[in-house]
């Protein structure tokens, strides 16, 4: 199942009023990228069309929520996954609207997932004598506490992910990893796509090269994980 290629909706500096706001169909909404969706929600709210704002908010939440839950579930006990995931979504969307989010919404959302999971474990470590039973929840503050901060997220506090540290420096090689590892394409297809995207590459990308780049990446990642024990 793939999402239709997203397209940005042109934004203007014009104040949106009821007169100049044009509601979009569900299909049109689904084709907006997430930043354009947020702009649409803002326009709809300005125009007094709360129904439209909520409809678009539904598309935004539906698009990302399950993947956020999946990412959270990798590192947080099941009893707290839903709460942490809701907090991630709520604070990410809130930041997008109050102007404190940095960069594209999807990248911002991913950063918030990393931060909240790290915060969750940091708080657990600070209370070593308290061991929750699997069915018990963490204290509400431990999950929602960060969302209580009305001020902007601090851009300097970022979690360095091992994946990012293991990636090659070269833009071309990173693209190989994107296609071969994360898009799960075979080496021939990967090489062909790389050569199309980077027609000036000399020598051109080969199957052997693809496999070497991927192997090096995986070795780097594994090495870091082995060090961690």
């Amino acid at each position: 199942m793939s999402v239709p290629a997203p397209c940005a909706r042109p934004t203007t500096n014009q104040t949106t009023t009821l007169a100049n706001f044009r509601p979009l169909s569900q299909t049109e909404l689904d084709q907006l990228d997430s930043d354009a969706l947020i702009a649409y929600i803002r326009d709809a709210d300005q125009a007094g069309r709360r129904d439209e704002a909520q409809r678009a908010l539904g598309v935004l939440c539906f698009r990302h929520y399950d993947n956020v839950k999946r990412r959270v579930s990798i590192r947080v006990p099941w009893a707290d996954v839903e709460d942490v995931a809701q907090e991630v979504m709520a604070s990410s969307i809130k930041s997008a609207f109050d102007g404190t989010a940095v960069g594209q919404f999807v990248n911002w959302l991913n950063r918030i997932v990393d931060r909240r999971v790290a915060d969750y474990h940091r708080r657990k470590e600070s209370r070593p004598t308290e061991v929750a039973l699997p069915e018990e929840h963490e204290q509400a503050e431990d999950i929602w506490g960060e969302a209580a901060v009305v001020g902007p997220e601090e851009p300097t506090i970022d979690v360095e992910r091992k994946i990012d540290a293991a990636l090659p420096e070269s833009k071309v090689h990173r693209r190989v990893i994107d296609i071969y590892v994360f898009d799960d394409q075979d080496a021939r297809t990967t090489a062909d796509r790389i050569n199309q995207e980077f027609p000036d590459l000399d020598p051109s990308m080969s199957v052997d090269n693809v496999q070497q780049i991927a192997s090096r990446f995986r070795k780097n990642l594994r090495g870091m994980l082995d060090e961690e024990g």
Partner: protein
Amino acid sequence: MSDVDRLLSEYIAEHRGGGEADPVGYLDRVQGTDRAELAELIDAYLARSPGQPWDAAAFAGSSAERLAEGMAEAFGGQAGLWPVVLPRLRDRARLKRDEVVARLAEALGISGREEKVERYYHGMEHGSLPSTGVSSRVLNALGGIVGASGEFLRSIGEPFAEGPGPAEGPVFARATTRAAEFQVEVADELRTAAPQPSEEWDDVDELFRGGD
């Protein structure tokens, strides 16, 4: 092909095919460094995923729908993230709304006034009751019922800061900037969502509207 490679491919195929794609089910099939490596790879794959296309049937009744409703009320309301957090806290405590209301009235020493308390609590959960007017006594009592501190509820209920937005006004229009026809609609909503102070301001009004 290693176990990690195979499991990653299977995971990607299930995820793209619209399956449940629960990462934990795959992680439980490997151990040690293999598990840690697979966790990193699945996580990175999901972070790159564009998300799922709209599906009205799947959306109806989902957590995403409840979240969207809560967020819409939060943005249009005057109580920060209470519309998102309070229902969730109530769910975690396994309490229905009338149970929360009954316990809240008892804790505040106003048993017998549940109907009015219920309307105010409804306003809190829907963001229509200004959080700044709700007393610490209420928040401390409510926190004790749903498993949170009063301070936490106060901070989570802080009204949103108004962001950059367009030059002409706040990012989120308040009732006063909407078209006249919508002002009437919004005013009606506020009237039904929470009690207006009656001619005689009573102790329940003081608790929920009088601030600290």
